[in-house]
């Protein structure tokens, strides 16, 4: 089952192709603020390089975030509307799962991190592996990077696009962590999204196409404000 995977949650457009075991293609394109402009072109170029057309793929995997609010809106809309238009099943993959999956052979415990936009706030989650698949431990973390220091009890691989920076912050917070944490810089991979999606789709666990939504770990500022205000009233 050949699956196309995309992730636009960060400052790159990641596009990959996988059959659930092998990686057929994995590319990333710098996108900063123009993921919308490039994403369909990027998908087309990766498919063409693999001598495939959209009709040849059996399903679509899409990174749900967390990440850039604009990026995940664009990625999820493209993912579900491609699936809808080409009549293919779609599987939404949390981007932190895809990041963790990429380092499954590095250590039994992985902490995947993604910058949350404001200073050193992050989205993060801890993962252990079962049959090479990442299984999330506990809830998603949203907050200041240094606040995950007390959560680190055993050796862990910290993976993400600013992993080295967060490593510095954490070891400054608690010197003893420098022997426990290993940092690994990595961006979300389209092939990892495709691979995880292929495994899900093979089990018949597609998502409902039209209702697919990004993974928002933070409410918009307006909603936070209004909720606070109405709670007081």
């Amino acid at each position, binding site marked *: 089952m050949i699956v196309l995977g995309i992730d636009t949650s960060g400052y790159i457009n990641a596009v990959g192709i996988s059959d659930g075991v092998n990686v057929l293609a994995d590319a990333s394109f710098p996108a900063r603020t123009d993921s919308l402009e490039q994403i369909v072109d990027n998908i087309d170029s990766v498919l063409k390089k693999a001598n495939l057309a959209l009709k040849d793929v059996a399903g679509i995997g899409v990174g749900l975030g967390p990440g850039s609010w604009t990026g995940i809106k664009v990625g999820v809309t493209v993912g579900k509307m491609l699936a809808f238009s*080409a009549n293919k099943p779609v599987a939404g993959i949390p981007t932190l799962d895809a990041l963790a999956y990429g380092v499954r052979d590095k250590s039994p415990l992985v902490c995947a991190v993604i910058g949350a936009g404001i200073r050193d706030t992050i989205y993060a989650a801890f993962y252990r592996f079962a049959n090479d698949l990442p299984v999330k431990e506990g809830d998603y973390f949203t907050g200041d990077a240094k606040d995950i220091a007390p959560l680190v009890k055993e050796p862990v691989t910290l993976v993400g696009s600013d992993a080295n920076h967060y490593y510095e912050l954490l070891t400054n917070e608690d010197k003893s962590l420098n022997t426990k944490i290993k940092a690994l810089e990595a961006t979300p991979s389209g092939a990892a999204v495709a691979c995880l999606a292929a495994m899900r789709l093979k089990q018949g666990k597609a998502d409902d196409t039209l209702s697919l939504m990004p993974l928002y770990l933070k409410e918009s500022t307006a909603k936070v404000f209004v909720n606070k205000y109405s709670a007081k009233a």
Partner: protein
Amino acid sequence: MLILGIETSCDETSAALVADGKTILSSAIATQMDLLKKYGGVVPEVAARRHTELIGYVIQEALDTGCKTLADVEAVAVTSRQGLIGCLMVGVAAAKSISYARQIPLIGLHHIEGHIFANRLSNPDLPIPHIALTVSGGHNMLVHVQENCRYEIMGATLDDAAGEAFDKVAKFLGLDFPGGPVIDKLSKQGNRKAFSFPRPMIKSKTLDFSFSGLKTAVINMFKAQIAAGEALPLADIAASFQEAIVDVLVAKTLRAVEDKDLNVVSVTGGVSANTRLREVFTETCKKKGIQVFFPKMSLCTDNAAMIAAAGYARMMLGERSDLRLNVFPNAPLGG
């Protein structure tokens, strides 16, 4: 040619099927009225998330009610210019995905051009050239509409659009959102001459508008009445305020018609649904021998049928967008 139109520039998620730029097969619109009432207006990020949630359903609805499938659709037209950036992005992301997956042409359009076409959809005999007054909560322009989708902007608001002034005054008077229809309804019970509000820029040489001072005048008068402990004739305030806006819109539009030596006016956009505006335009134009056209009520506010109609006209001129189509939140009409 069957075109799927998509419009998400502000707070309405909409999709429509239009055949040959004239016949509306379906027009699905999901409003965000619940969110508007909760937040007292449009919050860009909240609106954009709602578009992401609804876009697929709205397109499905347009196909279902038009008794068509995507295989019948020959092109996709989408609003890519002028609007809230995050909102525009959702529509464009959907449109280019459909265009790529179905291998059908794509065209990105300016939102205001859509409104100009809303009136052409409603009135197939609307002559060109003409003067279009586009008036809503987000825009307020006088446009010289010429053949082949060419436009000359003759005037625009320098601050608030008329619809925005309606919303803000309504909010201040403690009325519901959106303010336009509420003030329109309330005004029917009020005296239009009870208060003499300013008619901003009605005598200025330009065709530009300014409604922010009028809004302040209404608010100041309202505050003064409260301070004096006088009764608040809300219907009179609403009617007098509405009359001031209508007077300015009509006077400036007629001036634009004279400037271009034309005799056709097209009033379009959300505020073109205002009954008093329609009444005054109709009376005044009749006296002067000018033809005036309004869109059907369903085509006054944002909708995707008007985008599909504009897309058809542009495609007939040989225009297409490529898959790198991006959004331009502040692009001028024609740009």
